[in-house]
């Protein structure tokens, strides 16, 4: 949801709330005012009538006939005053009922010119129609609904203008930012803007991206230099040891010592190279992806390791679908397959079995073997290895996990009923998963 839509939504909700509550409040207020007004009118009429009666001391003959709303009845007893609301038929529109407020009171007067006569009591009823609630609420609803529609229209217009004009530099900045590639050199070219906030945003982004690129470049340089700095001394050691090994008259134990040192140096070199490879993948230095024919690569690897598999007496069961193209860095794909297959060979049982299956977007490698000694959750971490295995660097699966992560593959591992199973879910060359 766009920012502008979010703001509009909140504003609309606020509008509806305020207008709704305002309408209800307005309705009750008006109702109260009208009601009080009706009562006031009734009492004003009462005052007038009472005063007139006391002054004239006789009933005007024509009063009754004047209107429906006034009724005077002569009664024997004095009448107490009551104010009631009732519903009566509308005399103008038959069938419709109307709310009426009715004031009933009594007036007692002595007739004129006859002091001996007794006091006369009258019961007077005045009725006034109340304004219809339905009409009132309808009127208020119409007014407020019109108001809301007008507001929304105005809001939409303003927002349209805002997003087109005011937010345009922001969207342009976002667009530029999305084209940022850490391994490229030219600075981000933001479209100029006059808005101070956006200017600040662009300045900060510019600084940030420059800094990130600098850090990235120095990390890259460090990686390469570290490689150079470590590999060269290793080369010195191994070359000199190899020359030493050729010396005549070495005793068997001297030969073994030198041989052992050479092996250790070799392991150190491989470890260094693997760690550098991990770092390089982290640094996204293997960014270029190509269509790699996984079927061909896998068949090639199976051939490469065929002799070793036979040597260990392992039975292979392979089901490789042809022409499975995967979008991946070719070098990383090579390392990945090598690691997965050598793992399956290495952690196998004598006369064990390996099952390799490749489908479009899925590679399953299974092998028989002893249960893993490392908890499955830690299996993908660096230097987690079977402690009894001296020749292993403990980096193979970490490398597999890293390559999968950087290539967008899903990798999972399971051990069940004597079988290790690694499943790779990959995107094919069209990007489908």
């Amino acid at each position: 949801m766009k920012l502008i839509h979010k703001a509009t939504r909140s504003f609309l909700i606020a509008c509806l709330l305020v207008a709704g509550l305002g309408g209800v409040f307005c309705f009750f207020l008006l109702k109260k005012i009208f009601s009080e007004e009706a009562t006031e009118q009734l009492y004003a009429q009462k005052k007038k009538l009472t005063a007139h009666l006391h002054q004239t001391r006789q009933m005007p003959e024509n009063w009754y006939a004047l209107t429906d709303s006034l009724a005077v009845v002569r009664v024997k007893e004095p009448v107490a005053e009551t104010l009631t609301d009732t519903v009566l038929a509308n005399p103008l529109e038959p069938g419709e009922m109307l709310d009426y407020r009715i004031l009933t009171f009594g007036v007692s007067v002595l007739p004129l010119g006859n002091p001996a006569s007794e006091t006369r009591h009258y019961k007077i009823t005045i009725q006034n129609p109340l304004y219809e609630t339905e009409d009132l609420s309808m009127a208020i609803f119409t007014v407020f609904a019109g108001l809301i529609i007008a507001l929304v229209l105005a809001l939409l217009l303003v927002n349209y203008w805002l997003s087109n004009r005011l937010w345009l530099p922001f969207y342009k900045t976002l667009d530029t930012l999305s084209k940022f590639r850490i391994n490229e050199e030219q600075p981000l070219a933001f479209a100029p803007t006059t808005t101070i906030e956006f200017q600040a945003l662009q300045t900060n982004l510019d600084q940030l991206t420059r800094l990130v690129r600098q850090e990235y470049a120095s990390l890259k340089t460090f990686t390469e230099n570290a490689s150079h700095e470590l590999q060269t001394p290793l080369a010195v050691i191994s070359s000199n040891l190899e020359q030493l090994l050729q010396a005549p008259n070495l005793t068997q134990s001297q030969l073994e010592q030198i041989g052992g040192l050479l092996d250790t140096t070799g392991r150190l070199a491989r470890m260094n190279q693997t760690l550098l490879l991990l770092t390089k993948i982290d640094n996204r230095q293997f960014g270029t992806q190509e269509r790699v024919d996984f079927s061909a690569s896998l068949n090639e690897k199976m051939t490469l390791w065929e002799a070793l598999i036979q040597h260990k007496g392992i039975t292979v069961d392979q089901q490789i679908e042809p022409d499975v193209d995967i979008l991946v860095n070719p070098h990383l794909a090579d390392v990945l397959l090598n690691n997965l297959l050598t793992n399956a060979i290495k952690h196998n049982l004598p006369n064990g079995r390996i099952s390799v299956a490749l489908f479009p977007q899925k590679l399953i490698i299974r092998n028989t073997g002893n249960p893993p000694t490392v908890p499955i959750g830690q299996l993908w971490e660096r230097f987690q290895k079977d402690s009894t295995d001296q020749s292993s660097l403990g980096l193979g699966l970490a490398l597999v996990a890293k390559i999968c992560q950087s290539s967008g593959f899903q990798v999972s591992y399971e051990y069940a009923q004597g079988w290790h199973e690694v499943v790779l879910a990959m995107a094919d060359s069209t990007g489908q998963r």
Partner: protein
Amino acid sequence: MKILLVEDEKSLAAAILDFLRAEGHVCEWAADAQAADEKIDVYEYDCALVDIMLPNGSGLDLVRKLKETQSRSGIIIISAKNSLDDKVQGLDLGADDYLTKPFHLSELNARLNALRRRRQFDGSPEIVFGPIKVLPDAKEVRVSGQPVTLTRKEYDLLVYLMSNPGRVLTKGAISEHLYGDDIDQVDRFDFLYSQMKNLRKKLAEQGCPDYIQTIYGVGYKLTA
């Protein structure tokens, strides 16, 4: 062969020079790009071993210059940079091979010999040791004229041994040559032992004496 070694690390250069001279090559050493540049101007070499990262210059420039002025000479890049880009760039410039440090001297020797055979500096593309003759072009092996059928890895193994006669080759160096180095070791020493056994058996079947000497716990040596 006359070889120019361009390598700034003195003790590494010393070991390589020691080794190359023992192999009967004539060697010169340049410790930086400028010295190498001057040597290239004056002398002709059959082969140059060039490090890429050098004081006051890049080895890649030397490769370029060598290709321009001495197109006959073979070039092997020896670099600590194991990045694909450098490899591709070096080979594009005309280098014949690329070795990543640290490397085994016997591996360097095998590459040098392969280069020599390709360039035919010595006139003969064959590798001969006693009655064993290898024809690299046809990938054929003969013992006293009788063909021997070897698997691909056994063939590679034999050629590697024959490229380094009289040298102690560690099991690590041999298996790296056969299977590359970007993988964890897969009990390959045991495996190497069985391949070596097969190779010996196949050679012995053709009446070849066992020239492969086992140096217990270390490796092997091809010796007459």
